[in-house]
């Protein structure tokens, strides 16, 4: 388990966000320490994705503060690229660049943002492709790969930036059932290597296995935060109980 002195990598304090008049996030408080694995769950529309997308400012929050590795992230800030390179993100729909080969997908970020040479970036990229078990596909184009392979490429692409933290936004939700295990295996390996992770997912098996804490959200608020053992066996709030019974009940 984590010791209390671990450095906080992400600190969210009193964050709020509205879409027009609709309150999407309300008074979010969450601190994620270095090396910690947090799983975020909750019914759809509860603001899970919006919350993690505020961390790298794909969505702008309107109130409260977000610190990433001690630096405050503000909407419309200059040099947001310096923060984004420390925050890897994996999307539900992969979002690989279809006009580039797998390898080119991976080396783009390091070359443009970290100023790596093509040779350096390629070496780095091949290493990560090896780790997600698809080094043999480096010369192919994304549409030639299966969904599971594409998602593993997307993970490798994020890792190529050598981020301090990885955000996963429902990484297995768009996959065929037989593809899910391969992606989860890569995520578990990553967790075991000590990567700091925030995962929005409905994969409760994954949560049980790797999560240090589970964050349950509903209607734009964090309802409870607990260790997985505690959360699954003895959820405190009615809403978490209802959510779990619906999720596990069928």
């Amino acid at each position, binding site marked *: 388990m984590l010791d209390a002195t671990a450095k906080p990598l992400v600190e969210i304090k009193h964050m709020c966000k509205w879409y027009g008049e609709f309150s999407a996030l309300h008074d979010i408080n969450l601190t994620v320490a270095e090396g910690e694995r947090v799983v975020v769950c909750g019914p759809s529309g509860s603001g899970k994705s919006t919350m993690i997308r505020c961390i*790298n400012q*794909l969505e702008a929050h309107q109130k409260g503060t977000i610190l990433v590795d001690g630096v405050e992230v503000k909407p419309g800030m200059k040099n947001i*690229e*310096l923060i*984004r*390179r420390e*925050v*890897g*993100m994996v*999307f539900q*729909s992969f*979002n*690989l*660049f*279809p*006009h580039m080969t797998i390898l080119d997908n991976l080396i*783009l*970020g390091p070359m*443009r*943002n970290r100023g790596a040479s093509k040779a350096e970036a390629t070496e780095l990229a091949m290493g990560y492709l090896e780790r997600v078990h698809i080094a043999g596909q480096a010369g192919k*184009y994304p*549409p*030639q790969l299966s969904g599971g392979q594409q998602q593993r490429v*997307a993970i490798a*692409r*994020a890792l*190529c*930036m050598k981020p301090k933290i990885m955000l996963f936004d429902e990484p297995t939700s768009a996959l065929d059932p037989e593809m899910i295990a391969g992606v989860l295996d890569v995520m578990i390996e990553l967790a075991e290597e000590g990567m700091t992770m925030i995962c929005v997912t409905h994969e409760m098996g994954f949560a049980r296995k790797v999560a240090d804490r589970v964050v349950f959200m509903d209607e734009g608020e964090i309802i409870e935060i607990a260790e997985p053992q505690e959360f699954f066996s003895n959820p405190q709030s009615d809403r978490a109980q209802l959510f779990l019974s619906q999720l596990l009940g069928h």
Partner: protein
Amino acid sequence: MDRTSSPPAPPKKRLSLVDFALFAGVAALLLYAGYRVNDVLVYNWSWSRVINFIIRYDETSGAYVANLLLFGLATTLRLAVWATILASIIGVVMGYWRTSENLTLRILSRGYVELIRNLPPLVFIFIFYFFISSQIFPLLGIEDIDRSAVLVDNPMFRVLFGDPQLFPNFLAGVLCLAMFEGAYITEIVRAGIQSVPHGQWEAARAIGLSRTNVLRDVVLPQALRKILPPLAGQFITLIKDSAIVSLISIQELTYLATEVASTTTKVFETWILVGAMYFILCYSFALLFGWLERRASRNRR
């Protein structure tokens, strides 16, 4: 059933009686039109007089040389190429501005597009021509270019821009056409940029690319691939639209055809031949673009 058996032959496509009737009807109409011109108008056809204006026999050198209409065709081609290059630059910049986060840029580009799309081309070209030829050119010193200087009066310059004496005139024509077609290309580029899924922007931003890099490395390459067919169509439209600058005395194909028609009085022959020249030019480009497009889509996978 045997899995290796071959599939049944597809039904043959054949022309039905109705199709033949249609063709016959069209042929009859054409024949009637010919009859009207020949026998009712009592029109005296003389193709050779007009063809002389395409290629004529030069007595002194004893060879066939190009004449007015072919020069006009060359000017039209030059106009179209330069105007396309310029219009593409305008279109990409303005098209990007149309999708920009900056309100000022959006207003500017929107204003440009709406202004041009809602004016008749002729009206726009008259206004724009008198403005640039009377205000901008003197400011830039275009009128004062030494037209006998080595830089200007050499074969390369003639190939690229035509007669140096007519250069300011030619430039005005190029600018008018480019400004005009640029608005349509702007809209094509905007549609192309917006057709790239939002997730592409997000993924590129998430790995720390700047807005410029996202556009250059991720969005524009994908947008360009999608907009090549409409862009090719717009290029052919531009060739046809170039006829309109004959009204500001650019000596391209239509302008010279007007002169040939009035000196020879052979109106039908002139315009049918000129029409054929435009058709061959535009249709060749259409075939070329079609071929390029098929090749590009074959190579993709």
